[in-house]
């Protein structure tokens, strides 16, 4: 089918009017180029935002307290609201069932020392379920255990950056397990290490048992935050839980029902859903714009093919007289259109990929990272291109088929 004659035909058509072919090709190349670049930028935005916010699992809720703004039941406005161990236990017992539950206390800027090296890191007192809730990727040793909680053990699970900063160069996670470190001046045993690929901040953290942290570093029975895994619960279920839990908490902690800042439940499911929708929208928009540009290009190709057919009416008539079937004429016209679109499309694809790779190192930002074209999108774009190529060739090809040799060969 694609023998030398076929190629000769294609090259002749494509090269017989370089300017026209060039302009048509340019519109296709530009269409694909815009599609690829926009898609790449969209992906970069998504990756950046995910790296910044998306370090935890999406299926969780977080209970936090703050400053109540409104006076309520004799309490003054602008007062500090705290969640104590008793509140936390009451809250837990009134929940139906929870797939995962972790209390947290935070101490930012905690000094951690190993030998002569020291640095400032985030200290997190957590329950064992935090491993699941925070999707902690343990690289060596183990995570905080129930026994650690019960016995208030002084054990720590350190992040990859902490390991790299404090331990001698080349220390493997396995070698670090078992070492003794000083956390806020108190000796802890390293029982595990973790590494979060998707996040900048997580790796600068040290996890210790919640009970240990509360006793040693907070001198109170205050719980900074409670993270509740929601498992497979649907978004509507989590919304319902959020509402009822918020109501219960406000009642127990004596916070006005309209007070937004005394105590709140942060439903990450909702946030994740929002991000999903935003990025879904961006992706849709990118494809829509890209497709429209491609469509404009395809019309250009349809146009050039229509002109080609008109110019070659006589030739097509001769070919028919010499035994060409309608099928072979349609094949010829379609091949030319698809060839033209594929070549210019590939140029656009390469140019777009090249641009994205060229700019990638210079555009790192909290909300923007690693713009790229994934292979699937590129293949999809190529598939769309071929499809559009065939579609754009159908009109002119049918016109060519409808040419009757008699009319084509009639001398003026």
């Amino acid at each position, binding site marked *: 089918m694609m023998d030398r004659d076929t190629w000769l035909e294609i090259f002749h058509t494509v090269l017989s009017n370089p300017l026209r072919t060039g302009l048509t090709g340019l519109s296709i190349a530009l269409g694909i180029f815009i599609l690829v670049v926009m898609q790449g930028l969209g992906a970069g935005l998504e990756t950046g935002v995910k790296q910044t916010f998306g370090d935890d699992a999406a299926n969780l809720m977080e209970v936090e307290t703050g400053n109540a703004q409104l006076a309520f039941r004799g309490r003054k406005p602008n007062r500090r609201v705290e969640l104590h161990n008793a509140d936390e236990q009451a809250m837990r017992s009134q929940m139906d069932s929870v797939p995962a539950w972790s209390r947290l206390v935070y101490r930012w800027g905690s000094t951690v020392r190993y030998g002569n090296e020291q640095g400032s890191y985030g200290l997190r007192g957590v329950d064992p379920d935090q491993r699941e809730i925070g999707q902690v990727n343990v690289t060596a040793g183990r995570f905080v255990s129930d026994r650690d909680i019960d016995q208030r053990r002084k054990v720590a699970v350190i992040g990859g950056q902490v390991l790299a900063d404090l331990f001698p160069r080349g220390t493997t996670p396995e070698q670090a397990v078992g070492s003794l470190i000083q956390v806020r001046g108190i000796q802890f045993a390293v029982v595990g290490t973790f590494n979060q690929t998707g996040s900048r901040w997580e790796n600068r953290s040290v996890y210790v048992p919640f009970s240990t942290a509360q006793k040693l570093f907070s001198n109170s029975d205050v719980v900074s935050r409670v993270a509740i895994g929601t498992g497979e619960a649907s978004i509507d279920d989590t919304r319902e839980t959020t509402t009822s839990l918020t109501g219960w908490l406000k009642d127990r902690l004596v916070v006005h029902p309209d007070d937004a800042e005394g105590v709140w439940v942060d439903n990450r499911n909702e946030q994740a859903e929002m991000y999903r929708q935003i990025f879904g929208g961006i992706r849709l928009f990118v494809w829509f714009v890209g497709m429209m540009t491609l469509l404009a290009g395809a019309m250009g190709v349809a146009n050039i093919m229509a002109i080609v057919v008109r110019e070659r009416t006589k030739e097509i*008539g*001769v070919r*028919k*007289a*010499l035994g060409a079937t309608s099928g072979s004429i349609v094949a010829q016209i379609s091949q030319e259109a698809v060839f033209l679109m594929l070549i210019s499309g590939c140029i656009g694809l390469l140019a777009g990929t090249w641009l994205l790779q060229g700019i990638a190192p210079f555009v790192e930002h909290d909300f923007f990272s690693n713009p790229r074209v994934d292979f699937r999108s590129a293949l999809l774009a190529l598939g769309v291109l071929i499809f559009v190529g065939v579609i754009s060739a159908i009109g002119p090809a049918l016109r060519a088929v409808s040419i*009757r*040799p008699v009319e084509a*060969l009639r001398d003026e």
Partner: protein
Amino acid sequence: MIELKSIRKAYQTGSQSLTVLKGIDCTIEEGELVAIMGSSGSGKSTLLNVLGLLDDFDEGSYVLNGQNMDGLSEKAAARYRSDFLGFVFQSFNLISYKTALENVALPLYYQGVPRKERQARALSFLTKVGLADWAEHLPNQMSGGQKQRVAIARALIANPSVILADEPTGALDSVTSDEVMALLKEINSEGITIVVVTHENEIANQCDRIIRLKDGRIEGANA
């Protein structure tokens, strides 16, 4: 070889119907060299198109090489054209961006003959019409007579039973015309039936028989 019975053909132009062929009866025997003559509007081009399966007809019957040609599909017509018929046109109708050799080989391409064999056969037919040295030339590098000889080689290559020539000398001077006619006669002497449409008496007189058309009917014939 060719048997036409009461062929009628009308063209629809808007609401009007123009009858071009009003009942053509004629028989052309195998190996004949026949001229079809007539003034413009007599229907001679239409008749040639019908003979060449380039156009259909409304009524009557057409038997070519013992096979009935009524109501052919386009695909079947294309196959019969490529199997039985060779065409020579007034304006040559060579493909401008193909060399003489490629032009001659084109009908074989549509018959699915492999490229090597196509080239070899095309070259032998170019040699036959005396243009072997011009195989790699493009049509616009050749004279009218040469182009028509290339076109004749192209018509011959598929080994047709009948060659239909539409004013083959219409665009040529008298000397070249004679050369082309001599070539056609030589081909005819090898047993191929040839039908020439012309309005020139000198050309028609070189044929075995003249069919004269007037207003869509055959006027008379002489031997």
